[in-house]
């Protein structure tokens, strides 16, 4: 039997039997990337909305910076966080290097520009019209801003999911600041790299299949929202 097919069969066995090692890695991946995307959403959606509602010429420089950071290579993000958190670094005293917290910080660096940038674009495309309409109807600043976010919710959801897709699939940053320590900081992508190196293909393929399944579920969710136009109203 070809090794790939053999690997896929073994991988399915691991998934179906809920192999504890596999599940621990999947759970940690979801926890780290989930926390990173929640933080990025809480910071990025208000910031992106704020920038999207500002006049384009006033935010030109910051827009360029955000768009550049959207393509930040994970290893560069990992290197920066490593230098910050290493013993000699300014935040070394916190002792966060090689912990899930360090991995979350690194992933926030990758997801935050994506969530902010895509939210800004979404809000900029229709936000001004929506904001003006809200104001003509007597909305104060707060309600008008909330209305803009609500009206851009499908695109903002897309921004969040894109950010999650980026961090859950990246390997460089979490490898550098997490250290790929078994049972502590090993996540799906770093485990795939390690198991492939060891020739343990079925485990690596199992993780790869779970990553793909996750991507499929996320995209199905997005597709459902886009088709339905988001939540239904009374």
């Amino acid at each position: 039997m070809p090794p790939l097919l053999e690997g896929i069969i073994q991988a399915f066995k691991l998934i179906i039997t809920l192999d504890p090692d596999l599940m621990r890695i999947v759970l940690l991946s979801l926890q780290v990337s989930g926390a990173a995307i929640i933080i990025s959403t809480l910071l990025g959606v208000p910031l992106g909305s704020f920038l999207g509602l500002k006049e384009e010429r006033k935010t030109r420089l910051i827009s360029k910076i955000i768009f550049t950071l959207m393509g930040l290579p994970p290893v560069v993000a990992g290197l920066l966080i490593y230098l910050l958190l290493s013993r000699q670094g300014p935040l070394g005293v916190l002792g966060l290097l090689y912990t899930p917290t360090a991995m979350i910080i690194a992933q926030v660096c990758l997801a935050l520009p994506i969530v902010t940038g895509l939210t800004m674009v979404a809000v900029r495309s229709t936000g001004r019209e929506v904001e003006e309409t809200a104001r003509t109807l007597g909305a104060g600043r707060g309600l008008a801003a909330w209305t803009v976010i609500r009206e851009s919710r499908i695109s903002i959801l897309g921004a969040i999911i894109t950010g999650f897709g980026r961090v859950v699939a990246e390997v460089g940053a979490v490898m550098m600041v997490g250290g790929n320590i078994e049972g502590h900081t090993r996540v799906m992508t770093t485990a795939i790299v390690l198991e492939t190196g060891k020739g343990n293909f079925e485990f690596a393929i199992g993780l790869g299949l779970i990553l793909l399944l996750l991507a499929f579920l996320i995209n199905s969710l997005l597709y459902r929202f886009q088709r339905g136009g988001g939540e239904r109203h009374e």
Partner: protein
Amino acid sequence: MSNKYFIEIENLTKRYTREVLNIPRLSLERGKIYGIIGPSGAGKSTLLRILNLITPPDSGEIRFDGQPVPENSAARLSLQRRMTLVFQKPVLFKTSVRENVAYGLKARGFKQKEIAGRVGALLEQVGMREMAERRADTLSGGEAQRVALARAVAFNPELLLLDEPTANLDPANVELMEKLIVQLNRDSGMTIIMVTHNIFQARRLAHQVIFLYQGSVVEMGETEQLFDNPADSRTRAFIEGRMIY
């Protein structure tokens, strides 16, 4: 305090890449329908936006009931809540028709029961009761314009600003919208300022007509007077269809 004029404009200017408005003086009375006519680029929509306080003028002063527009944001919002503007292409929120019409009432903190009553009555009035639960962003142009009007008047504004309220509508919807506009003015004394390209519509609906040309008020007067006997040659050229723009 009783003031002869509801709105007074003095030395108002607005410039984008060129000067779009320059109005030394304009006074409007309460309870009337004003039609603003003029060629494209005359500054009609900009004037409505400035009156609604969503676009600041470069210079000049606007007074409502003799009071200047306040600097304080709470007082400004309070003034803004006395009026509303319906855009030529209204933006309806991606929610139900009912929720759209209720928006301004919720923003003002009306009680749920009163909101339900007012929204129901208005939807009936604009012939949209059956569509109350439909997604507003799936409506046709005429339906959307009717919902936008209902949404704008739900909170009984003192001043209703309409930017081309019937542009691109079919004759049946134009007739319905015009009836509603007249009814709103007649029944609640709402002051209405309506920008229109359609001079026949201005003649049908407006008590007074303002002819705006290159950012300036060329002529203003009683509707019949202005149409039958315009004082300015440019007004005459416009209403006779001889003005190329």
